[in-house]
């Protein structure tokens, strides 16, 4: 079965985020960019499914020219083809979703995978939005799934337990951490990636309707204090929690 993985290039989670006063975007100088962590799970899930059942994996990104590097990394890990929809991404997930849905509409793949959320904006919305725009069912927060004939059966991590959801194909799945830790690209994979197809198309993004007015650093937490060392500090800690913080 052919599968699409929608993925995003984001700053490494270890990166120190910097921006100037009144800025609406971070300073990209010296920032290392990676494939968004949850999208790695989606890619691994796609690779394993296609290895078991046959079919091709195509990775799709809406992003700037540099996103080609991220797509190549996915090709090196084992994806068969890549599509770059070239355009500037905003925090408006619905604008992104419209572009992705437009692309997916022209394609035959029965299963489209997403990360549950992107590591930069943490919006957790593009996957279910694309599904809704395409009129397809969607399961989000999925830790593992299995395709059986015309149906995909998903384990979802929800409050209070695990929910098992069955969807008719074509369907959309968004992945959270679970069974799919991304493999390392082999040297052979890296060499092969150079010859795999990477299509570049210009994307037409309208102006975002969710606008970042400014970025701020999170408020510094008030200077904490070390209450003391070892067991002896416990009574004082309990007193502070009761009388000062008033939380117990």
């Amino acid at each position: 079965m052919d599968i699409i993985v929608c993925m995003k290039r984001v700053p490494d989670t270890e990166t120190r985020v910097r921006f100037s006063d009144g800025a609406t975007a971070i300073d990209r100088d010296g920032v290392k960019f990676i494939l968004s962590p949850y999208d790695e799970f989606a890619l691994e899930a796609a690779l394993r499914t296609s290895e078991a059942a046959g079919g091709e994996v195509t990775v799709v990104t809406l992003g700037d020219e540099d996103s080609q590097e991220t797509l190549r990394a996915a090709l090196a890990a084992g994806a068969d083809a890549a599509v770059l929809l070239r355009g500037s991404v905003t925090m408006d997930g619905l604008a992104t979703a419209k572009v992705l849905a437009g692309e997916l509409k022209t394609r035959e793949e029965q299963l489209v995978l997403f990360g549950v959320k992107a590591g930069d904006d943490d919006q957790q919305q593009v996957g279910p939005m694309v599904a809704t725009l395409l009129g397809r069912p969607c399961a989000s927060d999925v830790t593992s799934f299995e395709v059986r004939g015309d149906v995909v059966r998903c384990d979802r991590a929800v409050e209070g337990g695990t929910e098992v959801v069955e969807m008719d194909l074509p369907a959309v799945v968004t992945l959270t951490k679970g069974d799919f830790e991304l493999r390392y690209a082999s040297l052979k994979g890296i060499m092969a990636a150079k010859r795999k197809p990477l299509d570049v198309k210009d994307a037409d993004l309208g102006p975002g309707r969710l606008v970042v007015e400014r970025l701020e650093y999170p408020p510094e937490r008030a200077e904490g204090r070390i209450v003391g060392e070892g067991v002896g500090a416990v009574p004082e800690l309990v007193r502070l929690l009761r009388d000062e913080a008033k939380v117990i």
Partner: protein
Amino acid sequence: MGDVLAIAEQRDGKIRPVTHELVGAAASVAHGLGGSAHALVLGGVGIGDGAGELGGYGAEVVRVGEDAALEGCAPETCAGVIAEAVASHSYELILFAATALGKDLAPRVAALIDAPLASDVTRLEVESGKLVVERPVYGGKAIARVGFAAAPAVLSLRTNAFGTNESQAEGRTERFAVVIPETVRSRTVEFRAAESGSVDVSEASVIVSGGRGMKGAEHWNLLEDLRSALGAQAALGASRAVVDAGWRPHGEQVGQTGKTVAPALYFAVGISGAVQHLAGMRTSQTIVAINKDPDAPIFAVADYGIVGDAFGVLPKLTAEITALRSEG
């Protein structure tokens, strides 16, 4: 104009407590915008019976849609019904709780009504007539203040970030006829409950989290004892190192690739405080760290710290808290 709609969350035929906070937030912005707060309650037959109580949390109007098909709140079905209800009135804002269910529903509804969505909002206020919406980005390393070039806008609000207000008021209940979408292509076929009685980490007001410093799954009874001493609203959490080692289930993981939480009280025990862990818990109100390394980064965000061995500190802490609570 300026009306705000809070989408109630229910499970097993009962409105869930997160809804109270949501309705309160809806009421406070609605006042600022010169509008009123509505709540939308969807569920199986009978869900509307106690729904008027949402008035006590700030809802002037409680709109109730009952249908057997809404019992389990299947997102595909619910999203369609919510979108219809939203379209029948002019709202400025639609609010969801940023729970697993809310975060699943909100984008579907936003796509159906063609409205922008800001997720996991931590601040929502009206300042001199203007809406102020803030949400953390880059794993909490920055806060984005966002605005909307369209109405309505959809928001999901981080749980425990807003607090609740109670009064004696009753909401005016209005029932409406639900139209269930015909084609539904997804079905819940099974639900496996987590350990019974445990509060989910993303909704708990107190969290006791353990890290690799706890040395192994067999020592979790120490954390469990502290959790039960803290009462019914306390939950267990874990660092990723612990989950990766298979000591605890993934559902308990706090951080960038786990849950984002903002409880009143967060204990980090044997957790070093890596940025990805902080991403999930740094907006907690009070943070307590117990770690034997005085230089552990967790102390930089902790309000109170004890430098010491968790295995000695935990039993004493549990005993002291138990004693305190039994004094009443």
